């Protein structure tokens, strides 16, 4: 089971009352027919980066009610993609500001094997993400909190732990690097951090294992994160924190 989508996400900035129509191509690389069901879902990202869906309209900043999509099932297979359209229409409701989000979920069907007794079946769901930000209301803001080093009780490894909290009203993309500084004050190692998305009122927790081959004279870890909001709306300085690793 497996399927693909293109594009994986839309990041829209619209005025209230504005209508946008987008297209999502659903494709498969499997030679057999796969029946795909379609639904609209809410979703959130946990601080550890994991994503989970929620019933439509159940999350605080859901844009699901503003999106329409054809939910008729369809079939895809290799060389036979399916194109579907969705429409996002922002209401004129007073008080809307910042970012909202939703997703179109495409789900395969589980396939029965030759099970006996107890059996687990698997199916896949791919979410086509849609963000929508109310034009002219963006207030991007974030804070880096609590940069510490902790030792894992199981594997004995040391981890740098840092939280980034969204204190604005739009989602942010976080990129950055971790630097290790030696006793001479020079950067002994740089490590690029994976991109993370920080939802409105959300929290991103970095838990970064310190490299085991760090130079012995490395004494300081510096974390620098550059947030970026919708339409590059974040204009603030990078978030910075440091902690002794001795």
């Amino acid at each position: 089971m497996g399927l693909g989508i293109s594009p994986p996400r839309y990041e829209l900035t619209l005025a209230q009352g504005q209508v946008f129509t987008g297209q999502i191509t659903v494709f498969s690389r499997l030679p057999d027919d796969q029946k795909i069901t379609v639904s609209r879902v809410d979703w959130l990202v946990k601080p550890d980066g994991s994503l989970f869906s929620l019933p439509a309209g159940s999350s605080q900043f859901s844009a699901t009610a503003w999106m329409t999509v054809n939910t008729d099932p369809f079939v895809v297979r290799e060389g036979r993609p399916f194109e579907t359209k969705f429409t996002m229409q922002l209401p004129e409701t007073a008080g809307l500001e910042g970012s909202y989000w939703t997703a179109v979920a495409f789900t395969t069907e589980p396939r029965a094997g030759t099970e006996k007794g107890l059996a687990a079946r698997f199916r896949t769901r791919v979410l086509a993400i849609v963000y929508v930000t109310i034009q002219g209301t963006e207030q991007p803001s974030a804070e880096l909190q609590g940069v510490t080093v902790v030792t894992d009780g199981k594997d004995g490894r040391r981890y740098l732990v840092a939280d980034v909290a969204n204190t604005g009203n739009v989602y942010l993309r976080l990129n950055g690097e971790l630097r290790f500084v030696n006793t001479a004050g020079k950067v002994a190692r740089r490590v690029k951090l994976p991109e993370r998305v920080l939802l409105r009122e959300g929290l991103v927790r970095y838990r970064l294992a310190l490299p085991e081959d760090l130079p012995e004279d490395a004494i300081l870890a510096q974390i620098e994160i550059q947030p970026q909001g919708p339409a590059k709306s974040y204009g603030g300085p990078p978030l910075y924190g440091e902690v002794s690793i001795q």
Partner: protein
Amino acid sequence: MKNLIKLLVLAGTLLSVGALAANKTTTFNFIYPEYFYFTTNLASETFDFATNNVGSNHGQAATVATKNALDTCLDHFLANNSPSVTANDSAAGSSTISASNTSQCEFAATDTSQNNAFSVSWGSTGETAEGAVLVATNKSSWAVAAKISSDFSQVSSYVDLQLKTSSGGTFTTLSSTATNVGSVQTGSNPLNNAYYTDYMNIYVVPLQYKLVLTNPIAIPEISSSSPDTATVTYESASP
């Protein structure tokens, strides 16, 4: 490199990606400017307590789920945990055996069904992956979670389906709440040492499942002709 997940064989769905073998830094050769592709090669896992005829040991759980293994589990449980046996006088004509502790038995699958012919290795750790999820995307973030979307109808109170996604890692009980399977990591970054391959834009998370009987004595008999199934949904996206 420790924990580097190497994509050993790409066939089946990946056969069409002819450029892969020539240059491991090539992209996945999708025709779309932006793409997110997600697949798993594991279609089902069977924990069959009705037969002794099993093939290779799938995964590294305590033992393969056979009738003999279940009997051994129950014998061990009864012999070592001294459950108190009480007559249940509130339900006339019946009696119950009450297990006073939380001892449990763990079982690997007796059979796995795969529908995609790619395989992965956990490297030189000696552990075996039963299957994998594969993400191919040219976006800079991705995430995969697993949740039980339809639980066992007859035995959900007595069993836990558990998932492990890293060599040497721990099993996590799946539920209707999403459990993280994997999320974006970068290149040869030693900070997070899993989920990337030596193919650009392709990420693989090996999987291993086991079944834990949380109350072995109370579990009802399952008909060998009518399996009790749970459905696990992998949710994935590039948020």
